[in-house]
């Protein structure tokens, strides 16, 4: 109790001292200015949707009033009309299923091989010395430039398209995976060794989960690359597929159809990124 009183007594004394210091300038007590704000993004709801809707509405209004020429850019409603026709005629599913099949097969194979090779590079010095220079040399090649070669190797059909996507998603995955393996906390590996865990257990239970964040962010990159390559590959000799549809629309100057096709791609990209987000939430829930 005594000490409490003491501190209360000290309170005003301190204030006096503060006042004394302030009075040296202008005699007014001022609050300390707050300088800690900013640099911390906070989620703001519905703004993204609002910007999107507003932009479409503005565009539609511009088209209807004639400010935006129909030749240059069709109205959103026209693009939507083209999309509805695509759905009603049953063509949408035909194009989409062809594209999805290529995407899923090519990307899954590319990812699996990429993770496997990335793990080898991360785990074995010999693989690192032998394969990493090769990966570094082949990674920057735009895979679409190799498409003619792939056509010769794998045929004009599905093979060449899947191969393009496979190679495109393979390299970023390799690099993400071995980087992830390199970044796994060595003390965890040492812990595993000190408890006599088998090599395979250490890889499966410590290294692979430890590299998972990097692998999944590699996943995001390779998925976008896969979609880009999908369209590019379909633009060269495909009967069905979203890329073929866009190419056809482009060569007929059917810009409304072209826009519908582009919108489909955009939605495809959003869905893929949402799925990867789900996978991240599931696999990396421990990060909190």
């Amino acid at each position, binding site marked *: 109790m005594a000490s409490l009183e003491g501190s209360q007594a000290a309170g005003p004394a301190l204030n006096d001292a503060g006042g004394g210091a302030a009075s040296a300038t202008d005699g007014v007590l001022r609050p300390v200015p707050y300088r800690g704000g900013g640099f911390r993004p906070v989620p703001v709801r519905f703004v993204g949707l609002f910007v999107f809707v507003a932009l479409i509405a503005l565009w539609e209004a511009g088209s209807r009033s004639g400010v935006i020429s129909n030749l240059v850019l069709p109205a959103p409603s026209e693009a939507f009309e083209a999309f509805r026709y695509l759905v009603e005629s049953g063509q949408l599913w035909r194009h989409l299923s062809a594209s999805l099949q290529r995407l899923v097969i090519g990307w899954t194979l590319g990812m699996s091989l990429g993770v496997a090779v990335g793990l080898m590079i991360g785990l074995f010095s010999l693989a690192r010395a032998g394969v990493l220079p090769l990966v570094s040399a082949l990674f920057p090649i735009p895979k679409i430039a190799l498409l003619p070669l792939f056509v010769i190797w794998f045929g004009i059909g599905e093979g060449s398209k899947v191969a393009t996507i496979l190679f495109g998603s393979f390299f970023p995955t390799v690099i993400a995976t071995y980087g992830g393996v390199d970044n796994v*906390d060595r*003390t*965890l590996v*040492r*812990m*595993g*060794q*000190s*408890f*006599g*865990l*088998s090599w395979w*257990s250490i890889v499966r*239970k*410590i290294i692979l*989960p430890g590299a*998972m964040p990097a692998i999944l962010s590699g996943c995001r990159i390779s998925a976008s690359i896969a979609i880009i390559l999908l369209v590019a590959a379909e633009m060269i000799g495909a009967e069905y597929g979203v890329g073929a549809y866009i190419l056809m629309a482009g060569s007929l100057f059917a810009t409304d159809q072209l826009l519908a096709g582009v919108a489909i791609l955009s939605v495809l990209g959003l869905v893929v990124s949402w799925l990867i987000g789900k996978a991240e939430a599931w696999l*990396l829930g*421990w*990060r*909190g």
Partner: protein
Amino acid sequence: MDLLLRGITHRYGATEVLSDIDLAVGEGEIVCIIGPSGCGKSTLLRFIGGLERPDEGEVLLSGPVPAGSLNPLTYVFQDFALLPWRSVEANVSLVLEDHAMSGREREEIIADVLARTGLSEFRKALPRQLSGGMKQRVAIARALSVRPAVMLMDEPLSALDSQTRELLMDDLVDLWQRERFTACYVTHNLAEAVRLGHRIVVLSRRPGRIRRIVEIDRDLGDRGPGDSELDAVQRELWQLLRDEARAADREIADGVA
């Protein structure tokens, strides 16, 4: 099972870090190893557990491995080394999964060690949800689960605040009184050393040599904070270490960890 170190000498490049260490650790004994930073005490512990090999000398085990010991030489690390993606029980389970045993047996061991370390109600928690002290308790539970013959503790309390450190020291004393485990306990904290060590090995500055071995006869249970006899030992140790610690502090690191 006893532990015997013979003529351990080690160099990193041109720098000699340990020089001619001879030491014996008897069963049921806690040997604390102290010394200024960079004297190679953690390196020595890695030799003892077989995580690294010394240039010269050997680490020997004498006597049979106790029956049922799954991992005779078991570490407790300074930074806990818990897998962040595994819950408390799964972290303990990790070190049992490679041993042949039924799921029931494993469950029983896990429940037992968690009960012994007071973690039963945290079974499902993830490491990030736990305080530092709790994390180290999980690491100790994990170490106990493999029934070690010798615990190799590498500054186990150094990453904790001083209050938690006191609590965990009490826990370790309780544990030792119940189980009489053998331990090599590396620390730079003299209070921990006089509290937990039956013998305290004082290493010199790099290259680490054994300068002195101080024996404390008092039962661990009788030791507590503010004990004048222990304080005297601690002062004596500090006298031994002070100049070395100062010199070590002023050294420029040359890529030697």
